[in-house]
């Protein structure tokens, strides 16, 4: 077991270092610039609106950047290794295939975690910068300062951040799953993106399927059932919208979504490992 862990870590470390060398960190600069630009773009609105716009922009940019890193990173993982034949060198060592899959996933998730950490720090800095700017503009009245600080230092923002990270980790799990099936990087990117988009409609499909009864045609029911059963419900992560709106979101609900994400990733990796076991290389 310990040996297994060591081998997984070695693959993860290798994957992480390989990904870092691919200049992905350049996108972080773009992220920071977008956020800085966005922070000043909405200056003619009230401070509540400015923070709302800024938070939406920040989370959307983090989500989009994370999604791109996850998709492109995962697409490079296994199909590219097969294409370059480097996978044969790796697997002829005492390395089990499932260890290879889990190591690859952990490497990718580590890269994503580092990027999320940096983006989170930039986001936090921009919020504090905006806070100072607004306090300077609105004057030093205690009530206004308190209201501005409540917006920029809202601890619930970390809740939203955890939800974004969990969602992206599930997307990475999906990408790793498809990469064990695929022979091309385009297939992995297209399939993961499709499931990501359908995942936001999964709850609609599920409700339609469960409520349609006998009224819908069998093929429609079959399609809706397939979406409900096979696709993750990405609408569960829309708690982020509630947090940005300044509404209360209980930690219990957040933790449950995090647990769901963890379980989903576990299942995806187990299925990916089985698929990879039977694959001819």
């Amino acid at each position: 077991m310990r040996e297994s862990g060591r081998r997984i870590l070695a693959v993860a470390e290798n994957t992480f270092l390989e990904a870092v060398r691919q200049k992905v960190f350049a996108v972080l600069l773009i992220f920071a610039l977008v956020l800085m630009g966005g922070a000043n773009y909405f200056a003619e609105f009230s401070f509540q609106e400015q923070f709302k716009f800024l938070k939406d922009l920040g989370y959307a940019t983090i989500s989009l950047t994370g999604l791109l890193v996850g998709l492109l990173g995962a697409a490079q993982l296994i199909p590219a290794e097969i294409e370059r034949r480097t996978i044969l060198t790796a697997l002829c060592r005492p390395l089990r295939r499932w260890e290879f899959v889990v190591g690859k996933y952990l490497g990718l998730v580590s890269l994503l975690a580092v990027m999320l950490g940096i983006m989170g720090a930039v986001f936090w800095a921009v919020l504090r910068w905006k806070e100072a700017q607004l306090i300077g503009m609105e004057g030093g009245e205690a009530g206004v300062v308190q209201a501005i600080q409540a917006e920029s230092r809202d601890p619930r923002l970390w809740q939203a951040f955890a939800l974004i990270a969990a969602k992206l980790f599930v997307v990475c799990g999906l990408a790793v799953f498809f990469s064990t099936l695929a022979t091309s990087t385009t297939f992995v990117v297209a399939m993961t993106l499709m499931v990501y988009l359908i995942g936001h409609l999964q709850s609609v499909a599920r409700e339609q399927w469960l409520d349609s009864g006998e009224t819908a045609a069998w093929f429609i029911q079959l399609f809706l059932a397939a979406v409900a059963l096979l696709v993750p419900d990405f609408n569960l992560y829309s708690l982020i919208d509630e947090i940005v709106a300044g509404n209360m979101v209980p930690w219990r609900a957040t933790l449950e979504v995090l647990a769901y994400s963890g379980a989903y990733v576990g299942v995806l990796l187990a299925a990916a490992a089985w698929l990879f076991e039977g694959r001819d290389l």
Partner: protein
Amino acid sequence: MSRAVSLALAGGLILGWGALKLPWEIRMTKDQRLATVGFSGPTAVAVREKLGQGLVLGALGGFRGLAANALMLQAHGAWEEKQWVRVRSALEVATLLQPRVALFWDLASWHMAWNAAVAAERYDGEESETRRRIEARKWVEAGRELLERGTRAVPEKALLFQRLGDLYWQRLADYQAAAACYREALTKGDAPPYLERFVGYALDRAGDKSAALDYFRELRRSMGENPDLARKPEVVDREIRKLESEIQGSFGGRTR
């Protein structure tokens, strides 16, 4: 392991997990809707019916906030150009996309009941004052309707009840309704301290001076011996004295 076996195992696992996760997802969705107090906002299907496909993907793809903000910016531009119908449609969709954002309802109703209504009142292309007033009233009603829906979408916050009270007071001169809205706002826990006096002011404006006096007396009693100065006890005392003298005056006038 053969390819067929590995495919069967992976497929079985995914399907089995699908069956397991389904009740979990249903319960979490239900819990999340309950946790957002009284939320019965539009479902994704309603959004889909209302919007174009591209925007739906934005709305449902985790970027709903950005889409709603873009609509608010569009409404802001239309407001600057005094394109009131465009302001209204953009804001309607923004509130539909993010019904739990109180700010959107507030801003949307302000544009309708104040800006658009005042513009209609002053519109120099219509000579008839009656027609101008009817048109203005329609905009005020649109603002009121938005706030009514907003209070149902965000029932746990004082802001929209307060704004609805303001609208009844300032745009419809319905002071009793305003007092009822302010009372409701005060039950929410995040109402500003000055709002508690507004119930009394509204009752006074409605002509129900004895109800206003009773309210202010009760309010003063609730402040206790050592009142919080932020609640302005001296203003409440002044209102009590004013109302007492007005009521006495009116009785005196009648008996004379």
